[in-house]
């Protein structure tokens, strides 16, 4: 029944009388028309009542005496370090920080004075995009797996953290647009994958606050029909092959070829 997930999440607070009046009314209305949730409520309330036969364990009466004895035995003895005046510690700290500052400053100025050695121009420009794309795909995969594997039929109402997943989807959609722009046609396969992902992420971002299994099924079907997870895996495999075999690195296109030389 609709609203079961939300209402089940309110049951523990209702049992302990922590629920606000509005939420309690909402829960009562739901319980009146949902026998499954009403049964769960009654079962959990009965479980809590069972604990009445058992009181919380109490500390032994001589607890303080034993604690006092232990504290005396484990009290720290005054060490030589305690005898050093505070101002001396402060002074030593200041000297260390000053020396460290001079050392770092010298190192930095020495580095900027060195001539910049040109490396492969292609790797300088491309590395951040590919790295970001790999990270992006990893995050998308985790998000999609969390949503498509969510089993709304289970009783745990806290299994799917939808507000967070919707927010992440929105952030990923923005990032996808930026990545596609930066790729600028250099990796068509990755761009197609990003476009496919955008569709799925849009569906996740537009999920209702209390989705039913049909909504998740639509997303699951989209992921399956576009082979999203397989494509992500393929892209990762391609990336790891490129990384392991230096000779297999993608050849830069057209004008970049000239810049690719050292």
């Amino acid at each position: 029944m609709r609203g079961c997930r939300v209402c089940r999440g309110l049951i523990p607070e209702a049992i302990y009388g922590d629920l606000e009046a509005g939420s309690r009314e909402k829960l009562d209305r739901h319980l009146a028309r949902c026998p499954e949730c009403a049964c769960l409520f009654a079962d959990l309330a009965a479980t809590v009542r069972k604990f009445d036969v058992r009181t919380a364990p109490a500390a032994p009466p001589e607890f303080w005496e034993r604690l006092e004895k232990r504290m005396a035995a484990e009290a720290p003895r005054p060490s030589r370090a305690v005898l050093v005046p505070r101002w001396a510690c402060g002074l030593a700290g200041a000297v260390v920080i000053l020396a460290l500052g001079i050392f770092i400053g010298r190192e930095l100025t020495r580095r900027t004075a060195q001539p910049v050695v040109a490396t492969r121009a292609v790797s300088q420009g491309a590395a951040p995009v590919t790295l970001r794309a790999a990270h992006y795909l990893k995050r998308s995969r985790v998000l999609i797996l969390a949503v498509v594997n969510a089993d709304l039929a289970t009783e745990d109402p806290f299994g799917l953290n939808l507000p967070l997943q919707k927010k992440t989807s929105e952030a990923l959609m923005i990032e996808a647009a930026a990545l596609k722009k930066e790729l600028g046609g250099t990796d068509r396969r990755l761009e197609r994958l990003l476009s496919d992902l955008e569709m799925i992420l849009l569906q996740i971002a537009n999920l209702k606050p209390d989705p039913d299994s049909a909504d998740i099924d639509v997303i699951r079907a989209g992921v399956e029909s576009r082979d999203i997870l397989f494509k992500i895996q393929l892209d990762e495999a391609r990336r790891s092959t490129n990384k392991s075999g230096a000779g297999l690195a993608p050849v830069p296109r057209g004008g970049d070829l000239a810049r690719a030389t050292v």
Partner: protein
Amino acid sequence: MSPRDEARWTDRLASGDPSAFRDFVEAYKNKVYGLAYEMTRNHADAEDVAQVAFMKVHRAVRTIRPGGGLNSWLYQIVYNTAVDHIRKRSILPRETLSPFGPDAPVEGPPDPAPGPEAEAEAACLRRRIDAALTKISERERAVFILRHYHDLKLKEIAASLGITLGAAKSYLFRSLRKLQKELGGAEPCPDKGERP
């Protein structure tokens, strides 16, 4: 502990009043020991954890700030100490930490007119509750115990255990569901064989 009580204790402890710490221990020993026992499930370990927790409070007594949430801070210390103790216990052989065997189940409130049958039934249920509590995770147990026996609100529990409010709600739901499953069936009394 009400906010006013909390402020009073904070002031007394921070003022350096020599009797304040002892009074504080006397006032809170049952709560601290209670949580320590529920986490460790052993009286010897519970006393050790409770003592270490109070010693940590004593060491940090000057850093307590008014309105800093003394209650949550205390429970946080007890919970973390208990978890550390459990981890240590799982590494070291059991005999090195406690010479005692498995503890007797926690006693219940005195029944006004307990017949022998009702008494036996209550004792059986207490044993089943004790057994059920060992079947849930440390976090779930801590959240349930703090809500049920220590009457902490979920917000305070979240602050004590360093988790979000949503996570505290989730742990409470899961713990209740698991306990319900454990205590639901009409199983025989675990071991002991005291049932008539």
